[in-house]
């Protein structure tokens, strides 16, 4: 073995390595991007699931937005109040108390209560139901199809199909909103965790059609609207809506509802 050849090889590889090291080092300094210390600190306290529930591309996106002042410190729906107060500390502002929200499926028409037009066996995906006659086997065209697109979307394993409809595990739900976006029927909304009265129906059909399709559908009778002392309930498109800002939880609507569909899913 020629000692010169070894020396040349060592020199070439070593030289390349040293050159590249210096090259990267120098340009690393030159192209340094100022990253706000607070941004890294905030990223440290955020949950790090990168679920996108805040509306930004992952936790680092939210951290950058908070530092820039584009997002409030309690923007992270997953971390909730504890994370908001930590972020608030870093940013030097008091965290506003955000109300905890949970996802809620506006349908109670499970296998017994909601009728099926025909028996369906095939691809189990809610979005695919748009291509099936009558938008799926379920008689009600607004209700939960129960094929679990929301279940697949949930990063926290907080929503499951129980007896043919989606049911949110409110303790596990972090209100990231993935299921809200995944549901092709727009059935899921974020409601305050402590709200007692929620309308478990989304059907915009007229009362008679609702009755034909499901035994627990909102028939749009407006008894809840008339009986709410706070004017928090309104019936639009034949389905009741509750304004949780106004609702005091008195329960007058739930009591008067002839179909008994204003209550919390159990």
């Amino acid at each position, binding site marked *: 073995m020629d000692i010169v*050849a070894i020396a*040349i*090889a060592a020199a*070439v*590889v070593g030289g*390349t*390595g040293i050159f*590249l090291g210096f*090259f*990267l080092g120098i*340009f*690393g300094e030159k*192209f*340094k*991007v100022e990253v706000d210390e607070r941004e890294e600190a905030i990223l440290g306290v955020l949950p790090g699931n990168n679920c996108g529930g805040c509306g930004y591309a992952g936790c680092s996106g939210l951290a950058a937005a908070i530092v820039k002042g584009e997002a409030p410190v309690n923007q992270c729906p997953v971390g909730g109040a504890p994370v908001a107060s930590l972020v608030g500390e870093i940013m030097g502002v008091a965290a506003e108390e955000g109300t905890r929200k949970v996802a809620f499926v506006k349908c109670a028409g499970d296998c017994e209560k909601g009728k099926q037009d025909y028996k369906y066996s*095939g*691809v*189990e*995906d809610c979005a*695919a139901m748009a291509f099936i006659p009558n938008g799926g086997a379920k008689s009600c065209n607004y209700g939960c199809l129960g094929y679990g697109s929301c279940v697949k979307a949930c990063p926290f394993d907080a929503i499951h199909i129980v007896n043919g409809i989606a049911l949110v595990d409110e303790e596990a739900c972090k209100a990231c909103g993935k299921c809200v976006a995944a549901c092709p029927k727009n059935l899921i909304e974020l409601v305050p965790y402590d709200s007692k009265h929620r309308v478990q129906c989304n059907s915009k059909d007229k009362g008679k059609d609702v009755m034909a399709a499901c035994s627990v559908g909102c028939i749009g009778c407006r008894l809840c609207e008339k009986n709410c002392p706070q004017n928090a309930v309104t019936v639009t498109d034949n389905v009741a809506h509750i304004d949780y800002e106004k609702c005091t939880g008195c329960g007058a609507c739930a009591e008067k509802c002839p179909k008994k569909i204003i209550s919390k899913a159990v």
Partner: protein
Amino acid sequence: MKELLIIAIGSAIVNNVVLSQFLGICPFLGVSKKTETAAGMGGAVIFVITLASFVTGLIYKFILTPCDVQYLQTIVFILVIASLVQFVEMFLRKNMPPLYESLGVYLPLITTNCAVLGVALTNVTKGYGLLEGVVNGLATSVGFFLAIVIMAGIREKIEYNDVPKRFQGTAIVLITASLMSIAFMGFSGMI
């Protein structure tokens, strides 16, 4: 000109880097769940491979050949490619933030993409000059882009299908990849 065209078509379609040379399988399987991200990865790979074939071509011609140490090509190319990717990442982050945002996640992943090294070494073994090497790099990476985007499209459709339990996940993806590979064999008579 004609030769360049033959090189381009040959490496992009006939000898597709993923489907007939089996290089760059890792990102091909890993980042092909969504068409969007697959296209992002493909774009980043086109960028890096083209640049890398140029730089490694220069190094081979002006450093390794004069010193008569061509046998060091692998180790030197690895060094160069890794630092090149690092450098490109830093450069983009400073000077082209929008491009960095869109490619950023994929750039570090490319460091470990063997297709990059594969192209650099192929350029040497086939004795391509600088221009031919760059064309070969560009075409190969376009082939990679093609393969990964097609794969992502198929995988999006697979999501909606009732795959038997044992075949779910990577298994069905590998089967799909092999079927694609067979389909691409159809091009082999072209050149």
